[in-house]
């Protein structure tokens, strides 16, 4: 469940190499405090959703609905404030509840109806997109209280963006859960061997539900922050987001089959995604080429990771 330190260093090495590369390419624009915060602010929503996705992938599942969840939650929170005049804080809390509910639905379908996570969350992805578009007729909702903007556009101590603070807090909470609580241990256990876990008295269904609900929650948090940054509830927000989140988590060394992965490495995976986008934009690489690069980086990182794992397997023995 915890791989050798060697493998985790590879990811760190990739991040440092990328930072070095872009620093050399455009020192003035890239290596500034301002840009540093820009990078981590840009990935804060990705990072938040990545924590929940890590939980799901640790139990061997997948959550493809986190993308369209951005649209749904943006629409829900915006609509509550604009159409129903609800206080922003209550609107946010209710929206997070919606996120948990979607996660609960995902978990229920996976555990009770036994549909595979890929298909379950793929279908859910389209269902919630449909709900968002049906409700809004395809139009964005805007015109809410300025106070709501603080969430996504405000700063702490004048330089640290609030989304970054939230992301760091969620990573810390996630890390504590995974490493110091029995829930975290159960996640790793179920992900690695479901039947042995069940025969050890673990309620496997409950553990999976917890994972999917966590993913729903973090996706909702990200969605609310996005809405605040966009100043509107966009039903089509987050298209393709799920792929970025999964990429970041896999980059961070979490195995698709479950039971293996550390949250610290996922954080680095998230940073790599951020540095890549930001760096490529600064050196004026166009967006389409950026997609190609992102794909290549993922393959290389996973391949290096596999090689590292194989090496330790040959010398220690399977």
């Amino acid at each position, binding site marked *: 469940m915890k791989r050798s330190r060697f493998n985790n260093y590879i990811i760190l090495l990739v991040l440092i190499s990328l930072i070095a590369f872009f620093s050399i390419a455009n020192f003035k624009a890239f290596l500034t405090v301002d840009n540093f915060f820009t990078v981590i602010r840009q990935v804060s929503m990705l990072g938040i959703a990545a924590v929940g996705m890590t939980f799901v992938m640790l139990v061997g599942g997948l959550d493809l609905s986190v993308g369209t969840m951005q649209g749904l939650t943006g629409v829900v929170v915006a609509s509550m404030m604009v159409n129903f005049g609800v206080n922003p804080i209550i609107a946010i809390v209710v929206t997070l509840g919606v996120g948990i509910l979607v996660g609960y639905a995902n978990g229920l379908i996976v555990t009770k109806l036994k549909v595979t996570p890929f298909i379950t969350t793929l279908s859910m992805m389209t269902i919630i997109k449909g709900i968002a578009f049906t409700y809004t007729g395809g139009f964005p909702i805007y015109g809410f209280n300025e106070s709501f903007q603080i969430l996504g556009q405000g700063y702490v101590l004048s330089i640290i963006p609030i989304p970054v603070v939230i992301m760091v807090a969620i990573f810390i909470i996630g890390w504590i859960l995974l490493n110091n609580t029995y829930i975290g241990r159960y996640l790793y256990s179920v992900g690695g*061997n479901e039947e042995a876990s069940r*025969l050890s008295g673990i309620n496997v269904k409950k553990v999976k539900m917890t994972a999917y609900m966590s993913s729903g929650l973090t996706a909702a948090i990200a969605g609310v922050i996005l809405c605040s940054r966009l100043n509107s509830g966009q039903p089509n927000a987050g298209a393709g987001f799920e792929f970025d989140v999964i990429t970041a988590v896999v980059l961070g060394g979490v195995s698709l089959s479950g039971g293996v992965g550390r949250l610290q490495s996922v954080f680095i995976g998230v940073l790599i995604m951020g540095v890549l986008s930001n760096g490529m934009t600064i050196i004026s690489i166009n967006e389409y080429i950026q997609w190609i690069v992102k794909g290549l980086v993922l393959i290389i990182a996973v391949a290096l990771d596999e090689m590292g794992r194989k090496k330790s397997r040959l010398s220690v023995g399977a």
Partner: protein
Amino acid sequence: MCPENSILSIRNVSKEWPGVLALDNISLDFKKGEVHAIMGENGAGKSTLMKIIAGSFWPDKGRIVFEGKEYFHFDPKQAIELGISIIYQEFNLISELNVAENIFLGIKQGNRFFINKKDLYKNALELIDELGVELDPKEIISNLSPAYQQVVEILRSISRNVKLLIMDEPTASLTKTETSKLFELIQKLKAKGVTILYISHRLEEVFEISDRITVLRDGCLIATQNTSDISDNELVRLMVGRDLSNMYPNKEYSRQDKEILKITDLSQGTNLHNISFNAYKGEILGIGGLVGAGRTEMARCIFGADNFDNGTIQKNGVKLELKSPEDAIKAGIAYIAEDRKQHGVLLHMTVAENITLAVLKKISRLLFIDKKAENKIVSEYIQKLDIKTPFSSQSVKNLSGGNQQKVVIAKLLATESDVIILDEPTRGIDVGTKHEIYEAMNTLAKEGKVIIMISSDMLELLGVSDRVLVMRNGAIAGELSKNELSEEKVISLASGLTS
């Protein structure tokens, strides 16, 4: 340097894992056409040595000489090409493909693009006839019994022109008749000049089939002897390093009159029919029967792992509603599964994490695991069961099979259940560890626990149990008290023979 008729020589081979010296300067010769048994406790190094010969592992030091040529190590593919084949305990077959396809897996039957199906089946039949067995080359592997699957593995090695065949616990899932048939096949291979390396814990078999026996202990070569020159007591002494005249510890009858578990009319589909029995405080209740009699199915029902259609489970007079293993553990029933690798041990976690897994919630406050309490439990059980591991944060997959089994037992014992069901607890485990497990069972019984032990090992069943229930075709065929216990009676009840 090499004896004339030796096919494989191991010269000063050493192999180290983190914290453990698996093989210590081993030098060994294997002759052409001999059946050579490799024996030793778990952790002795047998598996490691075999895997080095098969090319799965590389030695840290030393050399391998095969047919006169010297090598530092083999690759699996290279080993196969040289004529070295290994049949693992868990077969390496593709269950959805058929016999012929498995035999020739990796060998082209046809031209560049197409598999010539006619040739495939023709060649398969040739090999089948040559070996003298009855097998349909078109049969799907998953429809075959373990015995026939093993035959397919043997045929595969023959198709690869095997010169040295390694068999790891080949009779683990075979009946006595099937074992005899296997020995016939081994003799046929021997006649062809194939060398067989035979790893087994079963002394009777080793004495029956092997020409020479090599004993390993703690990674060292203890002795290599002609089978005819050694007695079984001597063999056990060489393996264990001490006298094990009493394999089954002297048992004081500790059964009390208090009935703890009462099973009434337990039925499940076609697997179980009206099972009824009681289990008493402080007794070791053995469950005998042939493979397929329904013993594991019954145990799993009692543990809440599977649903059943009819019947009641009562503990201490209270009827239990068990919907999951979680419920069973809460009710004080623990089950140690038959298949250690799939259902028992969490291979991707550490020793400590495995041991505390079933009681994690109990030692947590408000979600947080009490690390002090955790460490206490872990060190307690490592000591109680004498689990050999350099540290508790060792990954459990690096432990020997016997120690892994001890970890699984520790995990369930930590729940402090008063009914403990063990399903084939010593399968594939060395003599020394077996003895330790029997001692542990006795201690638990003395403490007043109910021990239910499912076993296919006749000697174990007779030596350890206070009384035995024998199952046949999903029902209880009979009960034997301590005085009535005998091998013949168990077998006749288990197979329905009236003699």
